[in-house]
């Protein structure tokens, strides 16, 4: 079983959330908003590249826009494998969390 790394998981989730609008910049912005941290371009694109190679993600090029200096953008979407990988992670996490006491240190 190949578990996703945390950043891969977050990126997949971001793609799912953005649905048809998931291109690199949008994913990065979403991640930065949610986590409140800076995500460098490399830290988004290198995992994206890997996830495409692992066939968790598909990518399609859109028509070029003037906004992007005449460049097209690559839109990412989840594949079956990607969805099941996410589900698997979610299931594991839920199982791990289940029945744990509250996450506060009992003082005294």
């Amino acid at each position, binding site marked *: 079983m190949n578990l996703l790394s945390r950043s891969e998981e977050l990126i997949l989730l971001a793609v799912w959330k953005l649905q048809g609008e998931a*291109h*690199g*910049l949008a994913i*990065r912005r979403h991640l930065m908003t949610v986590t409140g941290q*800076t995500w*460098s*371009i*490399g*830290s988004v*694109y*290198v995992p994206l*590249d890997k996830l495409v190679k692992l066939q968790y993600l598909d*990518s399609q*090029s859109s028509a070029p826009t003037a*906004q*992007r*200096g005449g*460049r*097209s*953008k*690559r839109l990412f979407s989840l594949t079956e494998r990607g969805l099941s990988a996410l589900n698997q992670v979610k299931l594991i996490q839920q199982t791990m969390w289940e029945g744990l006491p509250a996450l506060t240190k009992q003082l005294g």
Partner: protein
Amino acid sequence: MKEMPHPDPDGQTLPPSAVRRFLEHFLTPEERIDILGDMEEEFRYRVSVVGRRRARGANQLDVLFALLPFMWRSITWTSLMWINYLTTAFRLFWRHRAQASINVAGLAIGLVTAFFILMWVEDELAYDRYHDDSDRIYRVMQNVSFGAGAIETVEAVPMPLDAVFEAQFPEIENSVLFSNEQSWALSTGDATFREGGYFVDPDYFDVFTYEFLAGEPTSALQSPEAIVLTEDLAVRHFGQEWRRSILGKTLSVDESTELTVTGVIANLPAQSSYRFDAVRPMYSFLQGKDWLEDWRNSNLRLFLRLEPGADAALVAPKILDLVVERTEDNSRTIQLQPYSDVYLRSNFVDGVAVGGRIEYVRIFGWVGLFVLLIAIINFMNLATARSTQRGREIGVRKALGASRLSLMQQFLGESMMTSLAALSLALLLAFLLLPSFNALTGKVLALNLLDPGRASKFGAITLIAGLMGGLYPAFVLSSFSATAVLRDRVTGFGGGARVRKILVVSQFALSTILILGTLTVYNQIGYLRETHLGADRENLITAELDGVLAEKYETFKAYLSGEPGVASVSFGSGSPLLQNTRTPSLRWDGKAEDDGTGFRLAWVGHDYVETAGIKLDEGRTHSAEFLNDASNFVINQQAALAMGMEQPLGQELSLWGSTGVIIGVVQDYHLASLYSPIDPLVLILADEAEGQLLVRAKAGRTQEAIASLKRAHASIVPGVDMEYEFLDEEWARMYRSELVTGTLANYFAGLAIFIACLGLFGLAAFTAQRRTREIGIRKAMGASVPGVVMLLSREFILLVALALLIGVPVAWYLVDGWLGSFEYHTTLGFGSIALVALAAVGLAFLTVSIHSVRAARANPVDTLRCE
């Protein structure tokens, strides 16, 4: 030209950035579009929020932070690729291990040669540069004309010059006088040793800095009876424990004067022109030599240290003006020679420095370069030959998407690996051979691989070799299209054949030049050695004749004359190899007024000519039976020529008021450097025994002669060990560098031809292998073994012949120029050219035929069956 529309009317386009362009190298093509698009979009957004300037800064930061992850990713992939290259390379190496070993060995030999020569050259160039201000020290040279246009450059000046310097020349920081070489019998009372040294000015150690182990450089030479020793000498006289209390200890010199040790310096670095065991202050040397005060006598060496920035070329004429003014003699000129040139550039012709040892340094530089080139060509050849068999591999790689660049990387990488393997072998060889090399050259070289300069030079040589070896496959083979290579199923592209031929030709042309060149150097040195040699150097023992021994010379000679091992005994002022005294004052009938020919003078004892083994041309030598021989002269053939005498015997000569007749003429022999013309010589009978003792031992009985010599010495000068030398040893010492050069040159030429043949061997193997089937068919059709051998060898023989056609004229041209610089020289004869040509073709044929004979003898059934 049409005006281009402004690309950025609203200032919103992302400005170019070098870092971003760098980042693009690590991106896939898709990513490149995507990420640049993202950046552009983000930039516009940021411009609208924070303004153009800050948006640009933010983008630069983005790019910077993006770099690391992408670079890391690309390194991971690249290393995977390199692992594949490495595997391929090792498999190839293993499959062709014989050829590959030849390749590595050839290159390693080339590298070792280059390394050794580099170390040797560096050592030569480092001579005399170890003093603190070496670059500001100059030797004052005087050009003296000896009539008939002959100018000699001597390192001697009038002594009073030194005294006026400080007052008159602000450019001169300091100047020191330096005597000619002295030989002192130093004694502690227990033991006496003869040591070489110089008398120097008290501030000698201010100009020439040495490492002091005891004493102070400034005060060491201040008292007249001071002596400064080298460490070796200190150990010799005072033992290993000398450090404890050496200062103030006394040594007696020549059994008379007591000297006080005032300092000990570390042993001189090997790279020193003037070598000594000890130095003493000038005072005692000057005592009683009032004639030194005369400006017209030039007897001392003088070294200057100029002020920083002073121009030696401007100082020399000023010194000259002064000398001319004082001597009222304007026939001489003065020049300042940089101290660091003394070792390498001390041959003067007509008063101009024309080189010297630097010639040998240059020759060796070229030899090293040639050998390395030959080795690299070998390497290129074999790599090229091999790579033509790799068509299919290249095709498959290309079909799988390898770019031309990555193929180039692969081939260059492979040849780099080979050259690294050669480097390790070369370093191992260097380590093993260095002691022999040192013994041969008389140097103390160390590999010193930790020295950054040394390491980077070795590294650079290896790198260049590796790059050149991979050049052809990298650029030519990577350009073939995958379909062509795979579809045509050709094993070799015919390509490379022409390149290989050119390379073989240039390799053998280089070898030819090298061999002819070194052969000439060797012949020339042999020629100098064997012609005009004068004294028969074999079995001739020499020793200093001074002190008590000189006083009791007649007793000594009488003692020795009865001994069975001794043939004859005599003495002369100076060694038979070197007669330094010269005068233009000789007079004879019919001498022209302006004839200033310099005659070398030697004061000799009876039997001198016989003992030294000089050949008598006519007449007789000085004899005790003729009482007035004391004023008679023996001259050499040059002298007869210079005086224009066809019948010299019986002619009158006068020198310094004493007149005599010529009683004999000896054949010409070298009186000084082998490189300068032989001067006229006059032998005069000495009235007092002094100078150098000569003892001729009977052939094969030298040990007896030496034993007798020691016994005789002990009976006359008890307690002092007899120090002697064989004249052939002295000669070998004088011309050591020439002898070494000759030997080295031969070794290197041998190496060069060996490497070239190694390459030919590899190539022949390759050709024979490629044509196996062709030969099989030929034999099946009835070809004979000799016919096939000729078929395979012919091509190589033709190439080598072509190389000879190119190499011989070039070599002849170079060698002729070099030989022209010698006064007495050999010629590059037709014989040696023919010999070299024959040897080259013969060797090439032999090398190639090892393979061609095997290929030709193979049974066609075996070679053809696999089809």
